[in-house]
Structure formats: structure tokens, C-alpha cells
């Protein structure tokens, strides 16, 4: 991860400016960098296709109710286990619920779960990484050993145990994924902080008499955005992976909420008699996880200068 490239290190040219103005300025700049990243990603064919698939599912999750032909939870016992047809594009399940509508509405569950758990772990990880790296010394040592312990535990087993305690729920999944993911994010942020805290622009801010929070969030934090963006993309992919797996185990969101993982576990018992029940949600999850991973791979290459 090329964080040391001189043009990316943001020095503070207007040191008379107030902190908020500078933060807004760096946010605007981050937005510009984001647009530029998207433009450069379009050059790679696999990244472009991945973005289109991702946008498709994102659109589905937003306009779902307009697209879904049926109520995803409406039972219709006369139409149980119907194969794919013009009436039911993806067939029906054991309650006669329309699989297509459930997949469309399930995309909302997937995005909400993955986005909120990634966001929570990013926020916690950033705070822990900034604080631990900037404080250094014993605090850093203790925090890092603690994250070591968290990371050495088999994460799915850990998640299962925690959800077993809290009881399966949407919030439970978000908390569990955040706990499993934040140490890795804290590591990434910390490594940038350690690299930068001895640099001249940080020294200059200290000499100006800025407080530690200002230095951490206005001087150092904007420089973590590159590696943090890469990590966020990777974590988002893993969040989909993990939340779908937990849903499959029955430890995620609970029925009758339409959820792709749950649909897969419902389909298991009928895999020979009603294979469509498994095929369509499997394709939905596969297209989403594969495209997110190809996209995050392209972002990683872009950040390290290989693309």
C-alpha cells in the first residue's frame, strides 16, 4: 500500500484556517479522489462488469417493492413447490411464496447487514487504530495484544457462540461481525499512523500547538483513507460472506424476513425435488460476492499502483 508517496501526504498549507473548514476541504478532496478511482476502475474489464452487477443489486435493494411482483411473505398454499414459470420467474417455496420476490427483497437485507456491519467495524477500527498508534507505548502494546487474541480465535465459531448468547437478530449479526473485523481495520490504520506520526507536518502541527484530537483526525486521518478504502472494500466482501453464512446457519435474521442465506437453508431439504429453490438464491449470492471481491481486488491493485 503506497502511503508514502509524497503527493498523497496532505500537509496543512493554510495553518490559520479553522479545523472544520479544513475537514470539509479534505472531505471534498476525498470525494474527488473517489470519483477519480471509479473512473480509473472502469479501465479494467472485470472491475467494470463487477461494478455493473453490484449496481444492479444495489438498485434492486432500493426499488425492490416496485420490481417484486408478489408480497415476499405471502403464503399461497395452492402454489407450493412450483418450478420457474412466467407467473413465478424463480419458482415458489414450500409455502408457495414467490422466490423471485423474496430474492429481490432479500437484496435489501444483504446490503443493510453488510453495509452496517462494515461501517460499525470501520468506525471502531479507525478509532482504535488512531488512538493506539498515536498513543504508542504501553497502551499500544496492550491494545495490539488484545486484537491478537481476538484475531487468533476461529472467527465463525466465535460469531456462532456470541450469537448463541445474544440470540440471533439483525443487530446481533452487526455486532458480531464488527467485533470480528475491527482488529484488522485497527491494524491497517495503526500502521499508517506509526508511519506518519514522526513526519514533519505532524511535528509542525504539534509546534503550532494543535491538540491531539486535531492532529489525529485532521492531520493523520485523511492519509489513512487510501488503505482504509481498500480494507473497507475487502471487509464489505467478507461481511456479505459472513452474514450470509450466519443466515444459512439460522443465526442471522429470522424468518419470515426474506434473506438469501435463510432461503438457502430452507432449500437444503428439497434440493432433489425442488432444486430451483437453491439455484436462484445461490446465483444471487455468488454474483454479489464474486463481483464485490473482483472489485476490491481491482481497488487494491489501483492503490498499490499495479493497475
Amino acid at each position, binding site marked *: 500500500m503506497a502511503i508514502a508517496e509524497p503527493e498523497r501526504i496532505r500537509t496543512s498549507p493554510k495553518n490559520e484556517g479553522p479545523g472544520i473548514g479544513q475537514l470539509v476541504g479534505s472531505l471534498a478532496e476525498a470525494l474527488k479522489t473517489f470519483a477519480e478511482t471509479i473512473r480509473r476502475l472502469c479501465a479494467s474489464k*472485470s472491475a467494470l462488469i463487477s461494478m455493473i452487477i453490484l449496481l444492479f443489486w444495489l438498485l434492486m435493494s432500493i426499488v425492490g417493492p416496485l420490481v417484486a411482483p408478489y408480497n415476499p411473505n405471502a403464503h399461497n398454499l395452492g402454489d407450493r413447490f412450483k418450478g420457474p414459470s412466467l407467473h413465478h420467474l424463480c419458482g415458489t417455496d414450500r409455502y408457495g411464496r414467490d422466490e423471485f420476490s423474496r430474492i429481490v427483497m432479500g437484496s435489501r437485507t444483504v446490503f443493510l447487514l453488510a453495509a452496517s456491519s462494515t461501517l460499525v467495524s470501520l468506525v471502531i477500527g479507525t478509532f482504535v487504530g488512531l488512538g493506539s498508534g498515536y498513543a504508542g507505548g504501553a497502551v499500544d502494546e496492550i491494545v495490539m495484544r488484545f486484537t491478537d487474541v481476538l484475531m*487468533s*480465535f*476461529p*472467527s*465463525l*465459531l466465535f460469531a*456462532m*457462540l456470541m*450469537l*448463541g*448468547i445474544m*440470540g440471533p437478530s439483525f443487530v446481533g449479526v452487526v455486532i458480531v461481525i464488527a467485533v470480528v473485523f475491527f482488529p484488522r481495520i485497527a491494524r491497517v490504520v495503526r500502521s499508517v499512523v506509526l508511519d506518519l506520526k514522526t513526519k514533519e507536518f505532524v511535528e509542525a502541527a504539534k509546534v503550532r500547538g494543535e491538540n491531539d484530537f486535531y492532529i489525529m483526525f485532521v492531520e493523520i486521518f485523511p492519509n489513512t483513507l487510501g488503505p482504509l478504502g481498500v480494507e473497507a472494500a475487502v471487509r464489505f*466482501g467478507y461481511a456479505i*460472506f459472513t452474514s*450470509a*453464512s450466519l443466515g*444459512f*446457519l*439460522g*443465526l442471522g435474521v429470522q424468518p419470515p424476513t426474506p434473506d438469501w*442465506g435463510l432461503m*438457502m*437453508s430452507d*432449500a*437444503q431439504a428439497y*434440493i*432433489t425435488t425442488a*432444486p430451483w429453490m*437453491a*439455484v436462484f438464491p*445461490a446465483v444471487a*449470492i*455468488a454474483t454479489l*460476492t*464474486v463481483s*464485490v*471481491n*473482483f472489485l476490491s*481486488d481491482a481497488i487494491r491493485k489501483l492503490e498499490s499502483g499495479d493497475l
Partner: protein
Amino acid sequence: MTRFVLKRLGLIVVSLFIASIIIFLITEIIPGDVAQMILGQNVTPDALAALRVRLGLMNPPAIRYLHWIGGVLQGNLGDSLSMQGVSIASLISRRGLNSLFLAAASTVLLVPLSLLMGVIAGLREEKWPDTAVSTLSLVAISLPEFISGTFLMLIFSVWLKVLPAASSINSEVSLFRQLHLLVLPVVTVSLVLLGYVARMVRSSVIEASRSNYARSAILKGLPPLLVNTRHILRNALLPSVTIIAMNIGWLFGGIIIVETVFGFPGLGSLVLFAIQQRDLPIIEDVVLLMAAAYLVLNLLADIVYALLNPRIRY
């Protein structure tokens, strides 16, 4: 070396002790009354109280912890709560062997294949073999095990009808006579790690081939085959031992999912069952066992690494 191994074994014992306390505390705070769960809702308070006493639920937590861990140390794992009269030791020994077999077979499949794929891709960087391996491995690590498992099941069991969909192992017959039941679970467990290790090996091969020692070997006129085998691969393959070891935790997670997908009677599906049934003794024993297995496997990986790497001497 012996001192190193002994020191690490000591550390494992300490870690397991800490783990056992954490596991016990976690299961302590799981809500719900076990006695109520066993007897159901329509039960007299007297019967409930009697069962609580019999299960030792009225004792203070410290006594219950000592009772549990003392039993474990003497090889007495206790009885299951949800399945009356079933000893956990018999459950674990049978299912543990099944899971161990699944893990071992996956490793045997995974290690040579991922090394081969990574080496081929790394030595042919940017050529078609690299593109193929890189793309396939990225797809492999993207697919959750219950998705890849379902796809394999749909293709080989539902469509081609060559392999069974469910791995209902008959415990009376040796596993080696039921190998066909294991094909799909083993392949599914391996996929994610296969992709992951292949990618890691690829990048370490590329890194080694760009190194100064590789360049000087080429410049002094060594034939490419010797440069590749003696200089590049020797250095590039070492880290893969660590990478494989670091991902043992992932293998554990994968096994839990795969056992659920294929109805494979192993420790993973046992743990899921125990969590669903709130069968605390099973959860405690199996998680402690998995922690022990995890720590020992990590130690083994470190020993293998030290044996392979002449630069490390303990």
C-alpha cells in the same frame, strides 16, 4: 528445538486454562433455564427444583467450573443435556474422528494443489496460466462454502447423479469404505483455502523472482530450471507453511458450514446443534476441544516451518 517445543506446550496449557474460563463464563451468561428447557413448560415447580439440584445448577459458578474442568482433566466430559443419557465423550470421539478425517483429507488435497497453482501462476506472471489461476482463485475465495457446496451438490448429485447429496455416514462401517460420501464435503471445505493459498504463493513467487538473488542467479548463467527450483521456489514456498497455518481457523469455520450443508456427522454440526438446543455441556467441551486442536495445529505448523527453514534455530 526441544526447549522451544516444551515452552510452547507450556504456553498451550496456560492458554487452554484461560480459554476454559472464558468458555465457561460465556456459557454462564447464555440466558434460559436448562432445567425448564429439558422438562418443557407444563411441569411442577418441585420437579423443576429437583432437576436443578440433580444437574448441579444450584451450586455457585466457581464450584460448577471446578466440577467441569476437573471432570475434563480426568477424561470425564459429562452427559448431554438435550439428549438424555448420552455421554459427550462417545459423541465427541465418533464425530471428532469424522471431522478430523474431513480436515485431513482437505489438507491433503489442498496443499499440493494450491502450491502447484500458485507456482505455475507466479512463474508465468501475466500470461494465460496466471490469468486463469488468478481468476479462478478469486472466484473460489469469493464463494461462501454453503454456496459452492450447493452448486457442487446440484451438479454432481441432482443433475449428473454420480455422488450422493447427503453424507449420512454409517458409523458401523469404516470411513474408508464410504469415501464416495466424502468427495463433495472435502472439495467444498478446500475451495476457499485453495484459492487463498494459491494467491499467496503466487505473490511470494513473483516477489522472489524479482529479488536480487534470483537476478544474480540468472546473470551468472544458471539454466532457468535451476534458478526456479533452487533459488526462487525454495524461498517462495516457505511462507506458504505460515499462510496455511494462519488459516487453520478458517478451515474450522468452513467445516462447520460444510457439515451442515451435507448433513455430515462431525464436531461442527454438533456445535451448531448444541447452540440451537442450548446444550451447554456439549458447547463447553467441543469449543475447548477445538481450541486445543487449533493451538496444537499452530504449534505443528511452527515446528514444520522451523525444520524447513535453515535460518531459524531454536
